[in-house]
């Protein structure tokens, strides 16, 4: 973790190291199983909807063919996500905790880097779905004041890592002292 110097007091903007050069940490490799279960669950849900639509005969003539085509497409998409997308998603999901901010990077084709300053964190939660509990993984969510879309969720963390990160963030937050605006 890097310390940030602040020359000249509050008004001076510190020279922050280039984010790409920082030591980003990977999430647990077992997170791929969580993603695969999610993909399978969504695929089964969509298949159920397709079958329900067929059952009430919402299709015109040739409905069987259309249903078979949709199911085949769904199956291909599901296999592609299970085999190609899920492992790559895990490989390119990384997080970086620095002295003043927390960052999450995801995606290979659709790259996103999300950053939250430590002094903007309102509160944090650690959640575990049933699959995550089986695999010993957790999600750490950092809540800010910008609404649900402004929260930051770190998925696929080892439970110990999530607890450690939370404790570390709490310590950093408690060291922050606000002055009136």
């Amino acid at each position, binding site marked *: 973790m890097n310390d*940030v110097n*602040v020359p000249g007091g*509050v008004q001076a*903007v*510190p020279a*922050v190291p*280039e*984010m790409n050069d920082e030591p980003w940490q990977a999430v647990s490799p077992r997170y791929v199983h969580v993603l695969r279960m999610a993909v399978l669950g969504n695929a089964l849900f969509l298949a159920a909807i397709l079958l329900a639509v067929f059952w009430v005969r919402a299709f015109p003539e040739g409905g069987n063919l259309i249903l078979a085509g949709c199911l085949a497409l769904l199956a291909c998409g599901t296999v592609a996500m299970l085999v190609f997308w899920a492992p790559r998603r895990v490989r390119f999901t990384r997080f970086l905790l620095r002295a*003043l*901010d927390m960052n999450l990077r995801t995606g290979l*084709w*659709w*790259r*996103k*880097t*999300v*950053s*939250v*300053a*430590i*002094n*903007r964190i*309102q509160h944090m939660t650690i959640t575990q779905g049933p699959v995550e509990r089986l695999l010993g993984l957790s999600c750490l969510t950092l*809540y*800010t*004041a*910008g*609404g*649900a*879309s*402004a*929260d*930051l969720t770190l998925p696929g963390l080892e439970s110990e890592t999530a607890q450690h990160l939370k404790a570390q963030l709490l310590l950093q937050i408690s060291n922050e*002292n*606000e*002055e*009136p*605006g």
Partner: protein
Amino acid sequence: MRTKSLDDEGQWHRVSVIATFYFLLRSLRQLIRAWPALVPLIAGGERVRELLWYFGLPALLVLLLVSVFLYFWYFRYRIERGRIHIQSGVISRHNLNLDFERVQQADILQPFYFRLFGLATLSLESAGSAQQEVSIPGISCEEAGRIQSAIQAYRKTGQMAQKTGSAHSDTCPDGEALPDYELRLSWTDVCRYGLMHWGLLVALAALFPVLQSSDVLLELAISRLEETVLVQWAAILREQQMTQTAILVAGFLILLLAVLVLALFSMLAALLRFGHYHLTQRGDQYRYRAGIGTVRTRSLRMHKLQQIVVTQGAVARLLRRYSVSISKVQAGAEGAAAGSSRFLIPVLTAISLEQLSGRLELPRPRWSGVDIRYIAWHTITAGTAVVLALALFLQAMGQPGWWSLPGYAVVFLCVWRYWSCLGIFQDQSWLAVKSGFIGSTTAWVPVHKMQKIMLSQPPWLKAWGLANLHVWTAAGRLTLPFLAYSGAAALRDRTLAQVAISRRRWY
């Protein structure tokens, strides 16, 4: 009902019996929102409708009046050191404790039915993720002013203020120091706001999905419409075999009349909402008082500012006027909380906008444009969607689908115009994005209010070395599109560093 004094600390007080009217209106609003429950009853057949009309509605009315009176009877409030307690509810009792330091805003509203009796509603907005709005209706103006002053003084000094405290009160303007800045809107300016925003048109447009979602209601509406004079008149015209030109002219005149009537209603609504608009600034606090029927007083302390939006629509551009909206609450606030989160200055000239911008410490922006590949991307995506939809429509009408191809040219021109109006500005203190087509909208965000920042590179932007930068504040998201990746990353790092070291309060 004896008007209580703030000095009666620790005692429970009831509000005026006139407040039952306030509770009645609130209950009616809640009932109206539950209109989908009526649909199966109305569609249930003639017998069900009869039962509803002769028994259901009277029973509902009686129940409503009884519940409103009981709600008034069990509603009470108590002020003690630095805290307000409110008890409410009949079957399900609520006890609310609100510390003065958690009160973000204290507004005094005077609906017309309270003004006759010298009463008002004190509306308190609390801080925190729940973002609650609490109202105490039917208390005297003096009492509301004293509580408001006490809250403001407590937030300044941390102590309970006496009733002769020096804090600024909305209801006691006499004897106050001159404001640092003030703005009064004339009646013509407020009417201009009505023309600029056409609120009624928007409200009517919002009603159409409601009607269309209910076939039964639509059938009833159509059957009623068939009986109106207008439709009968149209039938008479057809019978007399009037020329098509005459019918077109008649239709155009009716449309013009409808537009004029809607404009009139919009101006009237603006007068009711913003008549006698008076904005003042004292130190870091802005306050406005406006309204003819219901008088609203809204205040804003500068450090709560999250976002400033300056808009100039197409009509506003013709009238050479601007509107300014200052947001201070988190995104997702609904209903009254969302409305009260915006501090609105409805109409400004260019000169008064410049004066206000100086007061708000907005810099003079030097706009930089957005990458020209913005036009290419949006023309391809939006153009393809438009052309495909048009092609399907043409095919359904029995025409060749390829006739929709010129749609790309139209989309290109529209995207080019939108791109030419896009601008981005950033300095140490502010981020701003300007957009528009005929008019313009400029959103300003203070850098130190940022909550989250995201650098996003979809595949096409990655291929071009570009990125989108998204900034979240408590008022919502601001997007800076199609930036050079290196510039966007540097801006992200600089903004993050400024926020991280900032000791200024974000709320």
